């Protein structure tokens, strides 16, 4: 009994600790409530991510990627001169890193539009689908004069059914398009800017 009692005392201590973390009070939405994109089909993840970028709100983007999200760049991007001083810039690219980089992208740019084209199904296993996506990303900076850049590339994007929601688990940049830089390169630059220690 002593063991069981001590066990639950400790567990209760943690639950109490969880309650001491309080958030700030938010302001009600200016345009009423809303938000939320359903992830009930494999390609819906792309719809939700594109919508989030266009609105410059990260909620649906966060919901569309898995807690186990991983990103992998092209060979060319990983060996780019800009990253010679920080070779680990693409290491351990988790969901947390992806959301940190996204917040910088949305904060410093007044327009972000992702065109994912027509994804081609490469593998379909009922609860797992691999798409090949030829995309373009338009980014217009806030800094004056406004600078517009197109990022283009081809990526293999894995989408998996998790508890009924289709979420992106793996984003693998496979090739560049023309002479444009890829979104993977932009990700690396943004992470470098946020600071990374090797």
């Amino acid at each position, binding site marked *: 009994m002593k063991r069981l009692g*001590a*066990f639950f005392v*400790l*567990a209760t201590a*943690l*639950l109490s*600790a*969880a309650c001491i*973390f*309080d*958030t700030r009070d*938010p*302001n*009600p*939405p200016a*345009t*009423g*409530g*809303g*938000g*939320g994109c*359903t992830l009930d089909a494999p390609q819906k993840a792309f719809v939700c991510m594109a919508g989030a970028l266009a609105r410059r*709100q*990260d*909620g*649906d983007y966060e*919901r569309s990627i898995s807690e186990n999200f991983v990103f992998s760049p092209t*060979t*060319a991007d*990983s*060996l780019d001169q800009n990253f*010679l*001083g*920080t070779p680990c810039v693409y290491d351990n690219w988790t969901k947390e890193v992806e959301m940190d980089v996204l917040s*910088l992208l949305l*904060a*410093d740019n007044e327009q972000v539009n992702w065109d994912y084209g027509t994804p081609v*199904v*490469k593998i379909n*296993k*009922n609860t797992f*689908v691999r798409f*090949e996506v*030829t995309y373009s990303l338009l980014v217009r900076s806030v*800094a004056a004069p406004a*600078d*517009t*850049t197109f990022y283009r590339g*081809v990526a*293999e994007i894995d989408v998996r059914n998790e*508890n*009924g929601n289709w979420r992106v688990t793996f984003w693998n940049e*496979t*090739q560049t398009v*023309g002479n444009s*830089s890829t979104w993977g390169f932009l990700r690396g630059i943004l992470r470098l800017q*946020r*600071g990374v*220690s*090797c």
Partner: protein
Amino acid sequence: MSLRFAAVWAAMALLGASGTAFAQVAGPDPAAAAQDSAYAPRYRLTPVYTNRINADVSSVGMSNDFRTGFMTPWGSIFDFVVKGEQKNYRLNTNTDETKLMSLTDLHKFNLFWMGSATFSDSRVFNRSTAVGGGFQDFIINDQTATLGSTYRRGFGNLRMDALGSGGVIQSERTFKDDQGIQAGINGGVAYNIGDRVVWQGRAARRSTWDQSSTVDAQFNDLGSDEDSLMTGFSVQAADSIRFDATHKRYDSDRTFADQGRGSLGAQVGGAENVFQETEVRDTRNTTLTLASKIARRFTLSLSASHDEQVSDYATQDTRDSKTLGDLVTGNITYVLPWRTRTSIQFENGETLRDFGPLSNAGLTDKRKRVALAVSQPFSKTFVVDFNGSSQLSQSFYTKYEENPRDRDQVDTSLNLRITSSPFKKISAGIGIAYTNSEFVNIDSLQSSNNRNRELWELRPTFTYFVRPGLSIMQVYGLSFEYTDYTFDEDQNFLDRNVTFTNEVRYKPTRQVDVLFEYSLYLHDNGSYLPDAETGERLYQISSEDRRDRTRLRVDYRVKHKIVDNRVQSALSFFAENLYSQRGEWTPGNYDERDVTTDGQIQVGTTGNYDWGGGKVVRFTVSRVKRFSPFGVDAAKDYWDARSEIAYPF
């Protein structure tokens, strides 16, 4: 990417604790090599050839590696490596190739001083079919020659080492060619003050002089300078208390040729858009740690650190950044007298990120976290484990008026796991998990996204060992994922999942294993919405789906021979069948459900032969045939293979 790692390895030794790498330096690191037991003096030629093949649904690749080492007549250790790797992708037309040749001569002049000479030639090649047709190539070809020298000596309580190196590199890239010279020195000192205090320091400096040429232009006076310094001391205050303090600083100034993008590069790259960029990076870190074993069952560790990182660019100044971070962490572990093991961790940190006057994204991130782990063995067959954590992350934007993105997020996770073997033939476990994430955007322009996500999971498991060679395992699962938007009552999502897996393992003979598995997955999705008539909020299902999956596998062991606790030879054949059916429907329309099926048959063989002395052959080869409603033909019929052949001559 072994060349890149070799370059990193060499440069890290050169710069000590700063850990910076430049691809221009290639070849093995002489200091590390001197400590490597593989470089122990050898008196005969020791060539080794290794071949690896890896083929799966997405790619087929092969690598060949030949290396040898011997003692030269003048007493040096000479190593030669040549390796090549090629990978072709099945689902697209991409090809990757890497090649490396390196020669290293390591000479020991006396007990304290060693020198090395290295030459390496490497190729990285990637070809893909460009969108719109034509080939698109990425190329890096490097030739590097390096001389190195290591001095290591101890004088009583004083230890010192120094490493110097110099080299030249010729690098060819897709749009430009680089030539460079590099020189560097890295040294360290460690001093024992009495029996309980150790002081150590390391310093490094490295300089490069480069030039780049494209079709249109030549860039001279490129290069870099890097300095790093690390100093620290550790104090063993008592037998059970240790205190460490370290300070590191790193400064680099680098001028290189970069590709223009955006307005600088008119949207596309190319030789005509290469320009000169200067990057300045400074980092500072100070860390204090305390580790203490207060009592036989009570340990404590604390750590506090301060970090500074500054990056400055001459041309692309939108990339400027300054990061200041402070972090305090702690860990307490205690084993209660009745063997309850507890561990408490806490963390409190704050980071200021400044992206320069042109950016609106400057912010301060604050994070607090507390975690608890408790493990209680009630008996040899009954154990309870509990893990929980809670974390608050907050972002405060510096230019809030221009960029009102302040946000808070609370993440809480609780896991309880009970494992038990109540009877000799039965073992059971149950897992209960709860995860909650609350997303709070402060400003009205963002707060429509405010939401709360909860995930409840219950997963019992039972295993019944019917008799030797026959066991049954059942795994159940019940989970609810609920997302509720704070400012819109009608915007919520509930996913309910039920899973069941039944696995039977049967060994009818010593050589045959049979596995049969059946899995069922039931799911529905809906929202709590007000009823049209009563206004009462009811759960309304919008879709349902079901998936049935079976797996049947048979393994036949032809041979399995163990000699001296080592598997000397093993050969087996296997066949596996997978089948899955998924149906999806709206409530009340089960008969009109959409049904898709997929499956595969895989037949193959696995072998493992080890003759000792490094002679090894391992392989797994199988033919896979799949069927599914979608996907390319190349992914439905292919060979899956993994093999390794290693042969020391």
